[in-house]
């Protein structure tokens, strides 16, 4: 009674492989050809584009800016999101469902709409700036568009829901009976949190941090809209190099670097998951 289930794979695999190899091969290959004017490219391949990225201070600054912004975003998402995820995972109530659906909803709405709302909220005479000025925290209204702070806020909005969902999964994998056991043996709430829940979810949190860091490194929409042409992160630079400067080779090289970076980080998180035997917190 042997069925050849493998046959089901043939067509889907062919489609996936053609799309993956085709798309990735072309831009990687193009990235080795230096650009001439008007979208033409040099006749011979070289590492010129890569060499330029790694020596030109403009590109290096962009790389550093993107990394630094993504680190802050990942830390903010994990830090602000963990208490939410922990309580939702440990608090069986009708409200849990409503709140989780709200979290899911925020990731189902295109980032453009959220940024649209943020820009209105952070207008110079909007509620946030009125409050900040009234409290005397700032002397001039906080500018959302065109500042690193604005890009960070936008990226946190874009990733927060996903971060909470990830960490909710992490806390759910820790059996409640462990909390109960610790409590019965006299641990206070604080000690249950710091000695049981936090240590057990730490590997998951590290993986979550890397995942959010990764998505922030590659996040385009909020960075493009809130950067306002002044704060230019790597994904925005890739889009501008491709569509405004029409430098396909250089855009390809930048994209290749981003891809390499993201894949390296993914391998790091897979290694962490293996090391700590995290069982499928997300079904990838």
């Amino acid at each position: 009674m042997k069925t050849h289930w493998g046959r089901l794979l043939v067509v889907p695999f062919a489609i996936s492989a053609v799309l993956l190899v085709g798309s990735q091969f072309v831009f990687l290959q193009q990235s080795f050809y230096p650009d001439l004017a008007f979208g033409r490219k040099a006749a011979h391949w070289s590492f010129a584009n890569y060499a330029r990225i790694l020596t030109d201070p403009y590109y290096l600054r962009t790389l550093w800016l993107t990394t630094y912004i993504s680190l802050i975003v990942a830390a903010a998402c994990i830090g602000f999101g963990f208490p939410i995820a922990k309580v939702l995972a440990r608090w069986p109530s009708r409200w849990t469902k409503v709140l989780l659906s709200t979290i899911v909803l925020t990731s189902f709405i295109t980032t453009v709409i959220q940024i649209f709302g943020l820009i209105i909220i952070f207008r110079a005479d909007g509620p946030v700036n009125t409050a900040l000025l009234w409290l005397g925290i700032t002397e001039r209204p906080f500018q959302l568009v065109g500042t690193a702070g604005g890009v960070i806020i936008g990226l946190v909005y874009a990733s927060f829901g996903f971060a909470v969902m990830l960490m909710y999964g992490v806390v759910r994998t820790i059996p409640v009976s462990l909390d109960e056991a610790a409590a019965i043996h006299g641990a206070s709430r604080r000690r249950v949190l710091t000695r049981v829940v936090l240590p057990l979810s730490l590997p998951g949190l590290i993986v979550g941090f890397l995942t959010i860091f990764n998505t922030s490194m590659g996040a385009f929409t909020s960075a493009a809209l809130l950067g306002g042409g002044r704060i230019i992160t790597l994904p925005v630079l890739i889009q501008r190099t491709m569509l405004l400067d029409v430098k396909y080779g250089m855009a390809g090289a930048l994209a290749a670097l981003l891809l390499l970076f993201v894949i390296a980080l993914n391998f790091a998180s897979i290694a962490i998951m293996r090391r700590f035997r995290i069982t499928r917190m997300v079904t990838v």
Partner: protein
Amino acid sequence: MGVRDASGAWVSVGQTVPAIATRGSQRALPRLRNALRIALTVAYFALVFTVLLAPLVVVIGGSFSAPANDQVVMSYVQFPPERLTLKWYREIPPPQLQALGFSFALGLAVALGACLVGVPAAIGLVRARFRGRGLVSAIMRAPLQIPHVVAGIAFLQLYYVAGDWCGIYLQGTTAGLFVGHLFLATPFVIGSVAAVLQRFNVRLEEAAHVLGASRWRALRRVTLPVIMPGVFTGALYAFIVSFVDVPVAVFLASADATTFPVELFHAMEQDFNPSSLASASLAAGFAIVLVVLAQRLVGLDSLLKSNTR
């Protein structure tokens, strides 16, 4: 002593273990601390969810808000609204409505396409035993690892090269967008279907086969109904991937074929018009309906579990 602390903890978590008898003034302090802790938790939740939902509320609220007087500049949104109006909904620019319809149709097509590719792929990946299965699985799920901007530029360059080679240029066409989104969306279907399938007991299907159903019939009548929630969740995610995407469509869209998020993206880069708030609210309202429907149909857990971004 510790037991009392712990019992205080139990009650507030909503567990059924009753507080162990502790009476009078001894109980007052932990109670107070408990109340304080709950108050702080509620306050924190209220703060975070307010902040999280504020942009959405402002967009939807602003879309119904009338200008304070008729001479007021177009670019100003009164929030909270002083007077309600449907003016902005009547004035949604036709390209935005068109883009909304286009995005909807594209999302449906992508969801369907992703299921046609992803469901057999998931069954094959879970059931087949052969050498190199890990590699095949990795290749089919690889799009999840690729930043969307990279996918966007990769497909644009692929279309240029393929066009030079065979004369059919896909950039700026519906087909080009469909292929790009299909690439991103298929792994979500594979992930959610495989997750359900791994929990499915193959013996049920074998029993049907032994009782005389053909292999195909057993698969169709026994297994498919069981994995339907997985298929549905995957299709939903595939739809959403296409419906909210900017970084891929910004490269592949054109004036003839443009999705709603890209249309809104360009509208925001240029000038501000409150009727964009109206179209954005329509899209957001649609997403809300989708989440509610999905929760009714497959349940929240299934949604959360197969979130494979």
